[in-house]
C-alpha cells in the first residue's frame, strides 16, 4: 500500500495519521474545557503545521471540531469530532498548552504527546469535598461582594451547603446539566426563603439568592461568547450565547419554582 509505505518512511515515527489525531485530541480537550475558539484553532493549527509542505485546515465550532490535512498525491485526511458536555476546566487548558508548546519546540515526540493528552483527559485535580468548599465559599463571598452584610453572607453560605450537596449528588447520578442546575437553584431558593421567613426576617432573601446562585449562572460563558463574536467567530459565538441562555433558564426555573412554592405556603 502506498500509504503505509509512506507512513513508515517518515522520520521518527511521525506519520500523518498520528499527527492529525494528536491535533484533534488536543483541540477536543480544549473545546470541552471551555477555551476560546481562536485559542483552540491556534493550538490545533500549530500542531498541524509540524507537517512540512502540506496544507492543513481546522475549524472549531462550539459543538464540533473538524481537522483536515491535504496530502499531495494522496487522499486528504479528515477527522471530525462532536463536542458534548462542555464545562470550564482551566487546568486542562493549561496542560494542553504546555504539551503543544513542547511538541512544537521538539522537546516531545508525538507518541509521548498522545500519552500525556490521554492522562490530561483522565486527571481530576480537586475531589468532591474540595469542590463542596468551593460551592459554599463562592456563594457566601459573592453575597458579601455584592454588598451584603454578615447576615446575607451567612444565609448564602447555608444555601451554598445545600447547593453543593445537590450538585455533587446529582452529578454522581449522571443527571443532565439542565436538571442539575434547576435542582441546585431550587435548593438555593428554598433555603434562602425558609431562612428569611422563619429564622431571620431581617435578612434580604433576594440578595442571598443572587449571591448563592453565582456558581451556576453563566456569566463567563456569555462574556466568552461576545469575545468570540468580536473575533469574527460568529457561529461559535451565537452557539455559546444560546448555551448561556439555556443555563440561565435552568437556574430561573429552579428559583421560580421555589418562589411560587413559598408564596403559596405563606398565603402571599
Amino acid at each position: 500500500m502506498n500509504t503505509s509505505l509512506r507512513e513508515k518512511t517518515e522520520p521518527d515515527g511521525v506519520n500523518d495519521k498520528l499527527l492529525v489525531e494528536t491535533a484533534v485530541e488536543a483541540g477536543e480537550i480544549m473545546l470541552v474545557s471551555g477555551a476560546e475558539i481562536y485559542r483552540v484553532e491556534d493550538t490545533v493549527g500549530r500542531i498541524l503545521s509540524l507537517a512540512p509542505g502540506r496544507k492543513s485546515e481546522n475549524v472549531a465550532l462550539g459543538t464540533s471540531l473538524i481537522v483536515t490535512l491535504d496530502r499531495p498525491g494522496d487522499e486528504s485526511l479528515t477527522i471530525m469530532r462532536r463536542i458534548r458536555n462542555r464545562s470550564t476546566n482551566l487546568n486542562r487548558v493549561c496542560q494542553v498548552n504546555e504539551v503543544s508548546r513542547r511538541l512544537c519546540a521538539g522537546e516531545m515526540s508525538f507518541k509521548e504527546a498522545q500519552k500525556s493528552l490521554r492522562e490530561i483527559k483522565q486527571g481530576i485535580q480537586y475531589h468532591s469535598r474540595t469542590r463542596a468548599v468551593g460551592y459554599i465559599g463562592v456563594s457566601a463571598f459573592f453575597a458579601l461582594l455584592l454588598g451584603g452584610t454578615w447576615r446575607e453572607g451567612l444565609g448564602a453560605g447555608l444555601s451554598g451547603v445545600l447547593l453543593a450537596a445537590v450538585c455533587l449528588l446529582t452529578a454522581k447520578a449522571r443527571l443532565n446539566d439542565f436538571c442539575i442546575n434547576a435542582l441546585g437553584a431550587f435548593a438555593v431558593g428554598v433555603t434562602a426563603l425558609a431562612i428569611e421567613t422563619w429564622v431571620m426576617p431581617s435578612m434580604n432573601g433576594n440578595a442571598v439568592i443572587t449571591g448563592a446562585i453565582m456558581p451556576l449562572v453563566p456569566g463567563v460563558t456569555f462574556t466568552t461568547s461576545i469575545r468570540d463574536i468580536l473575533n469574527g467567530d460568529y457561529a461559535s459565538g451565537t452557539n455559546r450565547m444560546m448555551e448561556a441562555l439555556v443555563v440561565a433558564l435552568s437556574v430561573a426555573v429552579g428559583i421560580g419554582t421555589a418562589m411560587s412554592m413559598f408564596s403559596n405556603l405563606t398565603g402571599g
Partner: protein
Amino acid sequence: MGIQIMVQTISAFLAVVCFGLLLEMPKRYLLDAGVVGGAAWLVYLLTAQWTGSNIMAAFASTLVVACISHVFARLFKAPVTVFLVAGILPAVPGASIYRCVFYVIRSGSSLATFYFVETLQIAGAIAIAIFIMDSIFRLIQDNEKRWKKSRPDGNSGTPG
C-alpha cells in the same frame, strides 16, 4: 465606606479562590488568581463610585485585569485565560442574565428587556476591554521581536 470597600475586596479575593476550585484552576495559580480578582473588584468599586456607571466600572476593571493577566502569564509561563477568567469573574453579568430569563418566565417583559440590555452592555464592555489589551500586548510582542531581529549582536541599532 473605606471599611466596606476593604471587606468587599477581600471577599472578591476569597470568592475567586473558591471559584477556582470549581473551575479546576491549577493549584499553583490559585492565590495569584485570587489577587487578580481582588484587584479587579477594587478597581470596579472605585470606578463605580467615581463615574456612577457599572458599565464603565466593568470596562475599567477588565482593562486592569487583562493587563495583570498578560504580565502574570509571561511571568508564570501559563496561558492568559487562566488569570483572565478568574479576574473577570466578579464583574461578569451572571446575575443579569439570570434576572433576564427569570422575568421572561414571569412575563415581566419590560424588566426582561432591561436586564437583557444590561447583560449585553456589561459583557460587551468586558469583551472590548480584553480585546484592547490583547491588541496592545500583541503590538508590544511583535515590536519586541522586530527589535531583537534588527540588532542581532546586541550593540548596533538604536543610535546614540
